[in-house]
């Protein structure tokens, strides 16, 4: 049994020498070290507080002309769907928002402004 322990620790240190990017001593990588592709991009941008892939609920603003709802977009327009336009709404109000001045919801009149952003790559 003791030779087995020595063997496994020898293998372990050999592995650690070979794969120098495993910085944690006990041998299992972290997402920090090993995440790749979209998972990695999302992990890193979320650390900066950004949400380019719309994983979280959209932020809500007061919707006035001075404080419009910000609608991020990777092109120059985006569809907005408002579910609580007025108190007793039973349907969702859908409309396009285009770049330029803030536009208003056709049902409740809240302001929505398109803000362009680029996907991280």
């Amino acid at each position: 049994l003791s030779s087995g322990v020595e063997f496994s620790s020898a293998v372990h240190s050999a592995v650690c020498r070979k794969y120098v990017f495993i910085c944690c001593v006990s041998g299992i990588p972290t997402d920090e070290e090993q995440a790749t592709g979209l998972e990695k991009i999302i992990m890193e941008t979320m650390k900066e507080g950004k949400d380019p892939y719309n994983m979280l609920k959209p932020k809500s603003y007061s919707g006035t002309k001075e404080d419009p709802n910000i609608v991020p977009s990777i092109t120059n327009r985006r569809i907005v769907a408002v579910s609580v336009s007025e108190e007793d709404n039973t349907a969702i109000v859908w409309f396009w928002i285009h770049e330029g001045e803030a536009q208003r919801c056709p049902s409740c009149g809240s302001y929505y402004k398109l803000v362009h952003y680029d996907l991280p790559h």
Partner: protein
Amino acid sequence: MAHQAHPYHMVDPSPWPLTGAVAALLMTSGLAIWFHFHSTILMLLGTVLLVLTICQWWRDVVREGTFQGHHTPPAQKGLRYGMILFITSEVLFFAGFFWAFYHSSLAPTPELGGFWPPAGITPLDPFEVPLLNTAVLLASGVTVTWAHHSIMEGDRKQAIHSLTLTILLGGYFTFLQALEYYEAPFTIADGVYGATFFVATGFHGLHVIIGSTFLAVCLHRQIRHHFTSTHHFGFEAAAWYWHFVDVVWLFLYISIYWWGS
């Protein structure tokens, strides 16, 4: 560069769903051909195609997740839902066999002698090998939890050891159960007792083999550094499945082996 603006995984075109469907067709029609015309070739062809489909499809899932990074948090959430729904469907699958057992054993018919176990059946002693099997599976539930905590804590050596131990315990269960099947004084043809016993425990044994295989794949992936301390859903899915297999055994043991004797 036209990239997706969402965090979900739109999979690339793949032939494996089609080959899987063809395999299912060949296996089922092959079963019918075997029953009527004594030829097993179609069924064997279907089985081979199924195994190839399984290996290549799930190999692609590992490539997409571990090597290409497509398994973002929302994608992983979808995989979790999927595994939970699948295990739920398996619970219902076993529920049918437990229904069959209780239907026949709660009100034994005159043909059986009006009692359970039926006339002529000597049931296995629940306090011999079946009790050992219970201990083996419960212990394997402990070792798989040990493996999970080792992974989360970043301890590679313990993760590999405990996962290996889990698989060995699963293999020991299968070995013991195979011996029990060989030595049993009754067969599947021995009335409703034999039928319910061997169909329920037989499907359970198949699930133990499937679960052990899943864990073995996880062991291979763990050795190859696929899992990180925070992202190892393949292992979690295998562990969930293994716990399900353990719970089914507990129900089998209590109902069929113990109460049913």
